[in-house]
Structure formats: C-alpha cells, structure tokens
C-alpha cells in the first residue's frame, strides 16, 4: 500500500508539469496583448505598461516565463493579478465557495442519485423506472444553461423559494439551486450507474446464495448488492468531484457564485495567465488527489484489490 501510494505520487509529477505547461502554453498563445484587454482600449500610461510587463515577465520568451512562474509556485508565490490581488488571496476566497458549491452538488448527486438508483433497480421495468429513465435522460440532454435559467427563474424569481443568485444567504440556502443545476447531469449518471450496477449484481451468484441463506431482502441489498456495486459509482463520483470544482463555469455565472469557475472564465478573457495557470494547477492537484483517494478507497471497499 505504501509503495503503491508513493508510486502514484511520483506518477503525478509528469502529469502536474504536463498540465501546467499545456495550460501555460495555451494562455501564452492567446492572441493580443493582455494589457489591451485589460485597459479596454483606453489610453494607457506607458509607465503602467512597463510596470505590468516587468511584474509578469511579459517580455521574456515563453519558456522562461513558464519556469519563472513554476519556480514561484514552488516557493509558495502564485503571483498577483493585474489588479494587484494576490492569487493566493483569490484561492482563499474562491476555493471555499467552490468547495461549498461542489459539496452541495456532490451531496445531491450522491444521495438522490444512489437512492433513486436503488429504487429504480428494485422496481425495474415499472412505471417509475421508465419515468426516471426519461427524466434523467432529459436532464442529461438539456444544456445546463437552459436548465440554469429555467430553475433560477422558476424557483428563485417566480416562486421565490430560494435566493436566485449570489451567496449572501450562505450555505446551504444559497447553494441549493446552483448545486442542483450543477449536479443535474451527474446526478442522472449516478442514478443510471447505480441502477445498472445493482442490476448486474442482482444476477450474481452471491446474491443468489444470499437468498438461499434466507437473508432478508434489506440485508441482501445492503450487504451484498450495494457494497459490491459501489466501485463503479465511487469511481465516477471521485472523478466527478474534481470535475465539479472546475467545471462550474456556467453555473457559477448564472447564479453569481464567486467561485473558481467564474474566476477562471474572467481570467481567461483577461489573459491573466497567472490566475488561470495557478487555479488550473490547484484543480489538477485536486483531481490527482481525488484519484488517489478513490484508488485507496477501493482497497477499503474491495478486499480483493491490493496494491503490490
């Protein structure tokens, strides 16, 4: 286990550099001058330009910029935005917000997805099964921005049940609507995955044997079916949690959640490589760690899986 852990950690290194390099290269390839974008065509103070150029090494060749940047990261210096806000400060504000949003979405997809997945698996072929199948597919097929506006308008504005935007009301009130929208597609996937893997397990020999043992249905479901179907679900959820953190660009936009997704979108448009690469780096690390955690969780869930 320990060896496996170390091995996985070492494997993260090339992925870490590759991803940051890729993002940095892409940001570097963005056309136009960040300052053009920043000053929106207004007259610029040459002194200010020079200041920015110096501070962000904009005149260095790309590769030098990259290593200066990475060097900074390793000394804990993620740099500053053009607005002179420390990127670390941005992380500190944004990450908790995004974490809360992602956690809300995660809980929704976890609880609802698994619960409904179990229900539909048990009622396979029944009207509820068909209905949920259609409903979840509709959720998957509807673009998130359409869903977002509809949900915001209906529950936030029209019915006024929950705040339509912002995080003033705090957790969880402010996060329920965006959390639901963010979770929608994944929730549908979890539901279907749960249903599918449960049905697979239902047909297995050990479930048959458990019935032969005279175990009550609930015990069979809990100890036999569910525990054995968990791995694909955990795999999906693990990858999804990392995706939830970075993929909330649209939801955070619609609901004005000051999280990572929103920041990234703005920073990309402002050509703020420092913020983009920094945040993506954090996301990548989160993604890698999630992966590792999921892997380790396997060992807990399934004693057959041993690492080396």
């Amino acid at each position, binding site marked *: 286990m320990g060896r496996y852990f170390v091995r996985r950690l070492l494997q993260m290194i090339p992925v870490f550099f590759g991803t940051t390099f890729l993002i940095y290269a892409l940001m570097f390839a963005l056309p136009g001058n960040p300052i053009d974008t920043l000053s*929106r065509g207004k007259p610029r103070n040459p002194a*200010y330009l020079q200041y920015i150029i110096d501070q962000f090494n904009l005149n260095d060749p790309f590769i030098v910029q990259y290593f200066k940047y990475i060097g900074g990261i390793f000394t804990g210096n993620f740099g500053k935005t053009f607005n*002179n806000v420390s990127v670390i400060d941005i992380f500190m504000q944004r990450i908790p917000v995004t974490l809360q949003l992602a956690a809300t979405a995660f809980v929704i997809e976890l609880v609802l997805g698994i619960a409904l997945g179990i229900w539909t698996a048990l009622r396979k072929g029944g009207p509820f099964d068909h209905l949920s199948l259609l409903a979840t597919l509709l959720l998957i097929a509807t673009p998130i921005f359409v869903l977002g506006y509809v949900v915001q308008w209906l529950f936030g504005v029209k019915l006024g049940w929950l*705040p339509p935007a912002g995080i003033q009301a705090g957790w969880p009130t402010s996060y329920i609507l965006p959390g639901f929208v963010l979770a929608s597609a994944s929730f549908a996937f979890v539901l279907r995955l749960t249903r599918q893997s449960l049905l697979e397990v239902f047909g297995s020999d050990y479930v048959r044997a458990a019935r032969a043992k005279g175990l009550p249905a609930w015990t069979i479901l809990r100890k036999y079916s569910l525990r054995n179907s968990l791995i694909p679900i955990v795999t999906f959820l693990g990858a999804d949690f990392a995706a939830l953190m970075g993929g909330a660009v649209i939801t955070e*936009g619609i609901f004005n959640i000051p999280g990572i997704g*929103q920041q990234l979108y703005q920073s990309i448009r402002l050509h703020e490589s420092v913020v983009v690469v920094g945040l993506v780096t954090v996301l990548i690390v989160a993604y890698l760690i999630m992966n590792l955690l999921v892997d380790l969780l396997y060992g807990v869930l399934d004693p057959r899986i041993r690492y080396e």
Partner: protein
Amino acid sequence: MLRTRRGLALVGAAAVAALGLSACASSSTPGGDTTSSAPAGGGGTFSIAIEEPQNLTPSNCYDLYCFNVLNQMIIGIYDFETQDDGSIKPVPTDLTKAVSTSDNGKTWTIEINPDWTFTNGEKITAKTFVDTWNFAAYGPNGQQLGFVFGPSQLDVVGYDDVSDAKSPKAKTMSGLKVVNDTTLSMELNKPLGESLFANFLAGPQILPMPSTALTVSGSEDFSKQPIGNGPYKMDTPWTPNQSITLVKNPDYKGSTPGNADQIDFRVYNDDNAAWADLQAGNLDILGVSGLPQQALATAEQVLGDRYVNTAGALQFGYYAFPQQTDTFKNKDVRIAIRKAINYQDIVDKLLYGTATVAQSFAPSTIPGGGTDICGDSCVFDAAKAKQLLEQGGGVPGNKVQIASIQGADNSVRKAVCNQIQQNLGVACTLKMFPDFGAMLDAYAKLGAGDTGFILALGWGADNPTINNMIAPLFGTGAPSNYIGYSNKQFDELVARGNAEQDPQAQINDWLEAEKVLYGDFVAFATTFPNTNYGYSEHVSNVKINPQGFVNLAEIQVNGS
C-alpha cells in the same frame, strides 16, 4: 460575465469603461448645515450591484465601479454635479476653498479648507495633494492614471522627467508646488480652459491619499481598505469578488453626510444574476452600467416607476470607414450606408428604447451636446440611400463587411447588416475577429487594394466635455485614433477650444471641429445609450448620472 455589457454590445468592443466622474455632491443644496445629524429618514442599509473593481487605489482606479466606491470615501478638489437641464459639470467640493488661474490657464492656484483629516487622523494639506499626484505620475510606481498629468490631459510642467518607467530624471514634477499648508500651485505647459481644467481635476486620479499609501506596497494595502475623508468609510477590508461594505463616517466634515447607515456593494459577474436578485428583492440597486439586455423588455413592467430610462449616458457607438482602402473611397457611398440604417427602429426593437439616435458625437448631457451636426446625412431614408450608392459608384463586389468581435452580442450589428442588405441591395456580413486587438491589427494592415471593412467601435468618455468625445478618437496621433484620421483644421479647432477660457466660446470651437468631422464623413456616431437602471421598493431617491455614478449619499432607505 457571460454576456458582454449592454453598452459594449451596442457600440462595439471598444472603450466603454465610462470612466466618468462623480456625482454625489448634492445638486440642490450647496452649503447646507454642517452638523453631523442625519436628515430625517436617515439610516438603514441598502445594496447596490457593481462589477468587481480593478483596484481601490485612486490613481489606479480605472473603472466605473471603483470610482463609485471611492467617490463616497474620498473628497477631492472637484466633483460632478447634475445641472437642472440634465447636463453635468464639475464644481468645487466642500474641501476646496478656491481655484484660480493667473495667466489664462497656464498656472493654477488651488486653495483648500483647513482642518480636514483622513479617518486615520492624518491632516489633509496642500502637501497631501502634491505628494499624491507625484506618486501617481512617478513612472516606476506604475499607476494607471499617471497619464492624467501628462500631455494628453493636464500636461503639468516636469511630467516628462518623472514619467519614465525605468529611470526617471526626477521624483517630483517641477510644475507642482506647495505654497503653504492650504495652497498649492500647478504650472502647465499649455494653457487650459477653466472648465476643462476642472473636468481633469474631477477624476479619481486627483483624490488625496494619506502618506502611508504613497509607496507601491502602501498603495496596495490602501487598495484593500482605503482611508478617506468622505461621508462613508470602510471598517473592514473588502472581500474581492463578493462585497464591499461602507459605513457612515461620523467625522465627515462636508455639508451633506449620507442618509443610509451602510452601503453594501455587491459584486456580480453576470448582470443577469443581478437582475434575478433585484426581482427577488435580494438587491436594491442595479444599473451602474445599465440593466442587462435580458431585463430591458420587462423592466418597466416588473419595476414600474422604479425603472428609470433617461437619455444621455456619456457613451456613443460609432462606425468608421477605412481610409487607406478604395472600398469606401466615395463619400456618397459612406453617407448611403448611414442613410440605409434605421437606427430608431433598432433602438425601439432591440434596445427597448434605451438609446438615442446620434446626430453628433456628444450627447445632450454634455454642455453643448445634443446639437444636430450631421443633419440629413444621418437621417434614415432607404430610397435616398440607394440613390446615393449608385451615385457614388457602389461598392466593389457589391458587398460590405462590418467588423465584430467574437463572443460579443452582435445582434445590433446583425440588424444593421440586414438593413444595409435590404435597403441597398448590397450583401452584408459580419467579419469576426477574436478580440479587439486582432480587429485593430487587421484594420491597420489594410492596403489600397484590400477589401475594406467597416469598423464598429464605441467610446465612453472620461469627462463630460465635447473635447473628450472627439479629441482622443480623431486628433492626429491621439491614443485612441484607431482609424488614423488626420485633419489639420480639426486639430486646430480642438486645441483652440481647449485653451479657451470662456465656456461658450470653447464649446463653439469644439462644435466646429465636429462639423469638420462630419464633413469628411469617415466616421459617424450611431447611438447614445441611455442611462437606465432599476431599484427595489426598499430604497428611494435613487439617481444614477449619465456617467454611471450613483448618488449614494442621498439614497433613502424606506422605513428607516
């Protein structure tokens, strides 16, 4: 954030930060009592939507949002005031005792009232201003607004010595001198008319900062929690991307303290979300830079008289024809294109009446603005347009292109294109560019033989003068003269107006310059956006001026 701002959408991708200047000095009660007791009905808390300000250091404050915040916190030399006719003008603040010029606008003496202090206790003296301004102009400090003291605006003597980014010759501008504790003098290279001087001195760049803020790192700390002398102050540092909270400053020396006890600036990156919040009662004021497009259709129905839509924001959209290509060489063709566009129809249908068709480059809210300079050339007439086009020999290939930026809302431009196509029988398409810079690069590279495209741009003024509406765009070598326009007569008229001390004579010079512009017809203004905003039932007496400044101190929280 998902949609480009409405203003931008209308006029193009260019400059519309509308860095206008403040409006909170009360328009009706100069003077007034100086007691600190709040007027009846004071107190309470309200919220207002802004976008994330770039910075809260005055000399680095280059957007509407930071200045809306700073405007409540720091009092400078001049402030903008809305006149009875709706136009806006800079007026001296309570802090200013007198401003005078001895030699027709070349040397200025500014006297301030004594005994003003920052909330940290530091006294405000003439030296405070001189130090702040030197800090802003000093190249290595990298302050965005340092250029205000340079040739394009005030042109203070000695600016060149301090402005170099790497190794300036001096640390301070020689034209800036402390005369005594309450008096300072400023010597300019070129004379300026009084109104122009006042306009230049009404922006954030001149707001005083305490001595602790006058280093690069000091200014960064200052930006997190500015210290001022105004009716409101910040007790806690702002939470970037979320909110800025101002509370009443009990020690305020001015004549008009704020009404509400607390102002929450709420940061929205998507104004549609803000609109949803306003409708749901979670937000009180929305519209510093207009209501989102999505809201316009229903705003009146939803808000009733809490929806305000008045003409004359300090912005305009304009179309410019490339001069280096042969495509639009004929002036009749250029006029034909303008005449083929029914802007009123577009304003009514796409913008829900939140704009005014332009007949000149200056809206009615600017002194001398709203004059019909263009005349018949800017009046929609399909038949006449077609006739002019034929008269001018048509366009090569019988097609025209209008430059657009990817990702912007191009519906207005599409409508324009459709009208050109319908009314002139000329195929019209949008020519897409990934961003503003790419568009300008392509424009600059056009040669005589290339097919030219029409540049669709926008402009937001820094101050309410006709000068600021035309000089930066069309002056020879001016910083935002993207089309490379150069007309000696125009330059002379602008310069003459700048130095004119008599306000009316000054305006006349500038209007003459505008006429020259329209005479050449290489560019025409399309529309002026209106100032439109909405507020909740929770507040009253909400006014946003054409520059986008909110009269925050005067806003009344209902029921408190």
